[in-house]
């Protein structure tokens, strides 16, 4: 937030506060584990995630295939490890779309106020009038199915949330003395927005992004499960679960493990997000 160079500063302080909470540390551990899986998938996966072996389809867990094999005889563990990459990319892109479109909208809306704010907020209201995953589904109906479109759709669905959040955060900062001072010495609007308003409203946005990473992974997997996401044979957790769903009676492991992985990863981001919220801004604690 402040220009770098001074000691270890705020990041160290946040980590120190974070480390006092066991749940936040567990969350951090899960997130790191997920990142390692995603980054080093080719090194960690025991088998080729796309290699078919129909003779051994739906085989239960064994020493060689610890999580068993799926409906086409592929190694479920390897597919889950590779699936982490897709989930990571989905999460990062979704959040980037939300932040890069939503934050400027919210900041401009709050900074200029008046008519601009009114119009922007009615637009945000309209987007928020689509409950949950519905806006993403509508966008997919328009854009067509596919992984890229799922990311765009989920990303755009999060725009109004970031817009609201950054707006309220800027509104509370706008009246503070340092902003007044910047105005008084003749700083331009762009400079005030970029140098003062955005950096000082970052902490709720960081917390929200961590929690949104959880939502993004969850929603994208949901859309994959509905058959609206990746095209086969891509190893994506939601699509894997959808494939295994049909064999739930005869080979429940095919659907169980990808779902468990989604659950644990989402839990990790939620725990970390909760912990970050308490560490960055205790006032937001629920």
């Amino acid at each position: 937030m402040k220009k770098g160079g001074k000691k270890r500063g705020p990041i160290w302080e946040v980590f120190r506060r974070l480390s006092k909470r066991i749940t936040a540390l567990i969350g951090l551990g899960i997130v790191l584990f997920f990142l390692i899986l995603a980054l080093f998938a080719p090194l960690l996966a025991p088998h080729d995630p796309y290699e078919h072996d129909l003779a051994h389809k739906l085989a239960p867990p064994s020493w060689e295939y610890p999580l068993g094999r799926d409906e086409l005889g592929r190694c479920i563990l390897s597919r889950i490890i590779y699936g982490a990459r897709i989930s990571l990319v989905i999460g990062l892109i979704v959040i980037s779309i939300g932040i890069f479109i939503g934050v400027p909208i919210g900041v401009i809306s709050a900074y200029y106020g008046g008519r601009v704010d009114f119009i922007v907020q009615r637009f945000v209201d309209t987007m928020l009038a689509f409950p949950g995953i519905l806006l993403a589904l509508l966008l997919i109906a328009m854009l067509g199915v596919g992984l890229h479109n799922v990311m765009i759709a989920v990303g755009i669905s999060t725009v109004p949330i970031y817009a609201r959040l950054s707006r309220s955060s800027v509104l509370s900062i706008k009246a503070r003395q340092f902003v007044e001072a910047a105005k008084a010495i003749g700083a331009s609007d762009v400079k005030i927005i970029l140098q003062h308003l955005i950096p000082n409203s970052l902490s709720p946005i960081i917390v929200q992004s961590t929690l949104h990473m959880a939502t993004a992974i969850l929603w994208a997997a949901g859309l994959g499960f509905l058959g609206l996401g990746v095209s086969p044979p891509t190893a994506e957790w939601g699509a894997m679960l959808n494939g295994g769903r049909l064999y739930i009676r005869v080979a429940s492991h095919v659907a169980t493990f990808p779902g468990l992985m989604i659950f644990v990863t989402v839990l990790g981001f939620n725990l970390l997000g909760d912990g970050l919220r308490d560490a960055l801004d205790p006032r937001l604690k629920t």
Partner: protein
Amino acid sequence: MSSQYIIRRLLIMIPVLFGISIIIFAMVRVIPGDPGYILAGPHATKEQIEQIREQLGLNKHPVLQYLLFLKNIFRGDLGTSTRTGLPVTKEIMARFPNTLLLAFSSIFIATVFGVLIGIISGVKQNSKFDYLSMLFALFGLSMPVFWLGLMLMLLFSIKLGWFPAVGAEGLNHLILPSLTLGANSTAIIARMTRSSMLEVIRLDYIRTARAKGLAEKVVIMRHALKNALIPVVTVIGLQTGTLLGGAVLTEIVFAWPGIGRLLVEAILSRDYPVVQGVVLLVATTFILINLIVDIIYSYLDPRIRYH
């Protein structure tokens, strides 16, 4: 005062409804290709496409097209499904009651369990019960609803045989889907009730009630709960709306014949009139529920009306 509040609240609703209708109107016009062809479906004859072009005024100015679109909505005409050839209104009305039933039974379960767990956790802050239930609440928030549904089906239908796995014939069929859909809301309501309870318990009037020598039960049930539940009402309302949208995944898992499943089927087969109809219905219902919740809220907490 309160009627003024309701009128103001209704006025705010208008631009939002307007916005929704524009988005849905624009939807088929943003997609590359001729809207007449898109709305008539891939198997339509030339005459059918021409008929739809005529009906929607596609040769006219976009503003006129939009007004015609609104007029059709108000007449209850949402077009014809390209998949079944039936009127969209008919398709939706055949399914909507099922989704409402599922959403309301889920919110009922979520409210009963969520509020109860939240109160106990709040009153017994930092107890084992508190830690465990908040941990479970976090599990509930992180659980992919489609996976939970499958796991419940695996345990209770396939292994134990207590409930049927799919379909919608009776109360027995409703239990697993409702538990699945309600899990996430139970967690949210429990967390909200707990934090609201914790906030209220620290207030002066509770200290006064305790100082008067009232029994703890009376203090909690009669004094604290009333105020603590006010914000919870809002969350319950919001969750009811969210469940309508969230029912999509649950309906697919349990083959529940609701509008969520209808929507996914429509998206996969590019049945745009049905997509438009379902989205319009769910978004409007969501707004109405929010309106009702806000009005209830303003009665429960008179301060709101004076803002």
